[in-house]
C-alpha cells in the first residue's frame, strides 16, 4: 500500500516543457502516418487605437492547405466583456488558447471583483505561448478597453508581444499594413477608425490568397462592445446553385395526352372499411 505522499508523487506531473506528444508524432510519421495538415487561418487581422477605444478587424476565410475550409468563420474571439482577440495561424490553436484564457480571466474576475484588464489577458497568453516555444501556432491581435484606457497588443506564436497604435497579423498583414501606414492619424474618430480598418481588411481580402470573403469589425469603447459580424460583404455569391425554373412555353410541345387515373385504377372498398374506418394494414 502506498502512502499518501507516495501516491501524490506518482501522479505529480513534471514541471517545465512537456513534449511527449511531439515524440509521439515523430514516431508516427516514421511509421508512415501522413501528417494531418492543420487548418490554418491564412488571414488578415488588424487593429487600430482611436481616440476613445479600439477597433479590431478580421476577414472570414479559413483554409486547409490550398482549399477554403470555411468561407465565413469568426476570427474575432471573446475574451472578456471588454476584451476581444483576433487570431491568425492554426485555427485550433487560436480558438482554444483564447477560450482557455477567457475562462481563466473569468475566474480571476470573480476572485478580484474587478473588471478584467487587457494586460492580464496579455500576460496569460504570452506565458502560455512561450511555454510551448512556438509550437502553439497562434498569432493574435488583442484589443480592449479597461480602467486605464484603450489598449492594443500583438502576440506572436513564440510569446513576444508589442504594444502598438496599429498592427496587423496573418498572411495578408503586409497588404493591410500598407493601408494603415498610408492613412493612420492620431486621435481618429470612431467612424474614421472603422473605415480605415475596413479598407485594411479589404486590402488583405483582395490582394492575398489566404484571406477572403467578408469583413468582421469589433469596436470596443468605454460604453461597451459593438460586434459587427459581416459588416462588409464584398464577395457576394452572384450565381444561383439551382437554376431558375423555365417559363411555360420555353419548349415546343409536340404531343399532348391526358390519361385520367380512374380508367387504370380500380378503387374497391370492402365491407369492413365501410363500417368502421378500417385499418390500412393487414395485421392478421
Amino acid at each position: 500500500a502506498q502512502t499518501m505522499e507516495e501516491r501524490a508523487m506518482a501522479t505529480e506531473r513534471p514541471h517545465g516543457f512537456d513534449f511527449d506528444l511531439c515524440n509521439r508524432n515523430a514516431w508516427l510519421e516514421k511509421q508512415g502516418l501522413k501528417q494531418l495538415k492543420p487548418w490554418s487561418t491564412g488571414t488578415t487581422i488588424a487593429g487600430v487605437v482611436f481616440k476613445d477605444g479600439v477597433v479590431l478587424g478580421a476577414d472570414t476565410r479559413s483554409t486547409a492547405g490550398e482549399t477554403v475550409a470555411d468561407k465565413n468563420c469568426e476570427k474575432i474571439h471573446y475574451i472578456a466583456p471588454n476584451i476581444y482577440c483576433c487570431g491568425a495561424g492554426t485555427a485550433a490553436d487560436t480558438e482554444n488558447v483564447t477560450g482557455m484564457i477567457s475562462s481563466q480571466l473569468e475566474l480571476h474576475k470573480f476572485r478580484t471583483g474587478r473588471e478584467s484588464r487587457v494586460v492580464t489577458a496579455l500576460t496569460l497568453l504570452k506565458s502560455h505561448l512561450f511555454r510551448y516555444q512556438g509550437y502553439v501556432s497562434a498569432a493574435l491581435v488583442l484589443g480592449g478597453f479597461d480602467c486605464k484606457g484603450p489598449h492594443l497588443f500583438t502576440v506572436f506564436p513564440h510569446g513576444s508581444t508589442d504594444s502598438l497604435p496599429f498592427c496587423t497579423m496573418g498572411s495578408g498583414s503586409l497588404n493591410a499594413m500598407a493601408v494603415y501606414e498610408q492613412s493612420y492619424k492620431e486621435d481618429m474618430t470612431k467612424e474614421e477608425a472603422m473605415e480605415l480598418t475596413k479598407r485594411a481588411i479589404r486590402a488583405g481580402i483582395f490582394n492575398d490568397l489566404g484571406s477572403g470573403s467578408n469583413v468582421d469589425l469589433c469596436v470596443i469603447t468605454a460604453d461597451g462592445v459593438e460586434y459587427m459580424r459581416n459588416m462588409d460583404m464584398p464577395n457576394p455569391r452572384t450565381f444561383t446553385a439551382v437554376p431558375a425554373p423555365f417559363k411555360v412555353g420555353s419548349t415546343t410541345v409536340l404531343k399532348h395526352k391526358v390519361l385520367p387515373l380512374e380508367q387504370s385504377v380500380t378503387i374497391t372498398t370492402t365491407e369492413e372499411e365501410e363500417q368502421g374506418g378500417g385499418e390500412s394494414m393487414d395485421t392478421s
Partner: protein
Amino acid sequence: FPLPHWSRTRTTSGEPGGEREREREGERRRWTRRQAAMIPQSSLPSHIASGPHVSPFTNSNAGLQADHRSEDIHVPANAASVPFAVAPSTEHAEVNLGEPRKHTTSPYVTGNSVLAIKYKEGVLMACDMLGAYGSTKRYKSVQRVFKVNETTIVGASGEISDFQYISNLLEELTTQDFCYDDGCTLSPKEIHAYLCRVLYNRRNKMDPLWNSLVVAGVDTAGESFIGSVGMLGTSYTDSHVATSFGNYLSRPLFREFQRDDMSLEEAIALMQEALRVLFYRDKTSINKFILAKVSGGEGVAISKPFALDTKWDLKAFVNPSKHAVGSW
C-alpha cells in the same frame, strides 16, 4: 545620375591588356568558325548571337588568379575556390571552350522594389537608390532606372551586376537601332518583348539573370506601356506594376487609387505614399528615391534624388510598455 562606367577590359590581377585582347580575339574567331554553320549571321548583340552563353566579362581561365574581393568580376580559377558556384561541367567541352559556365545561385548586391504606374500623359516609375550587400546598406547611390531611348525606361530590382549587363545589351540594341537610321525607334513593347526572350532563354540555360525588370514608356503613337519581366521569364503588362516587397506593400494602394487618367500631381502623390510605406516597412531600404517619367510630348525625364518626410514620433511609441511592463 549616369550609370557607373563599366569598362570591359578591366583587369583584376595586372595581366597586360594586350595579351588578353589577343586571346579574346582568337577565341572569337574560334567561335565564328564553329558556330557559323549553325547560327546564321544575325544582327543580335554579340553575346546572344555567338551561340551558347558567354559572359562579356570572362577572361581566359589559364593562369588567372581570381580576385575574390571583387564582387563585380567573379571568375573562379577552379571550382573549389568559390564557395557558392556550381562546379562548371567539363563534359561539354565543345560548348565550354575552356570557360566556366556560371550559375547564379544567389544574388550578392541587390536592389529592392521598383514601382511603376500609368497616368494621363504617360508613365511614372520610382525606386530607391540602395544597393544592398545582404543586410548591409552598401551602395547608396545606385541608379536602378536605365533610359533606353526617348520612349522607354527600364527599372530593375535584384542583382545589380545582372542589371548592368542588361543595360549593356540594351545599349547595344539602341546603338544598332540608331545605325539603321530608318526613322523608327524601338517602342517600349518591343523592348519588353526582347527582355522577355533574354531572361527566359537564360533561365532555360539554368543561368538566370537574377532580376525583376520593369519596362515603362510611351511609344511614338502616344500609347503608354508598362510591363514586367521576372528572372524566370514570367512577364505581364498592366496599368501598375511593383516588384519585390512592393508586391505586398504597394500593389494594394495602386489597386485602390491608380487610374489611367490621373494627373501628374496625383500620380506623384500616390507614388510618394507608396515609397513612404516601403521605407517604413521594408528592411533593406533607404530614404533616397528617384522618380522617372515618360510622357507623350516630352520624352524621358529622370529626377534628382529626393527624400520623403517620415513621422516617427507617434504618441503611442513614446512609452509603449507603460501599461504592459515586459512588453515593447
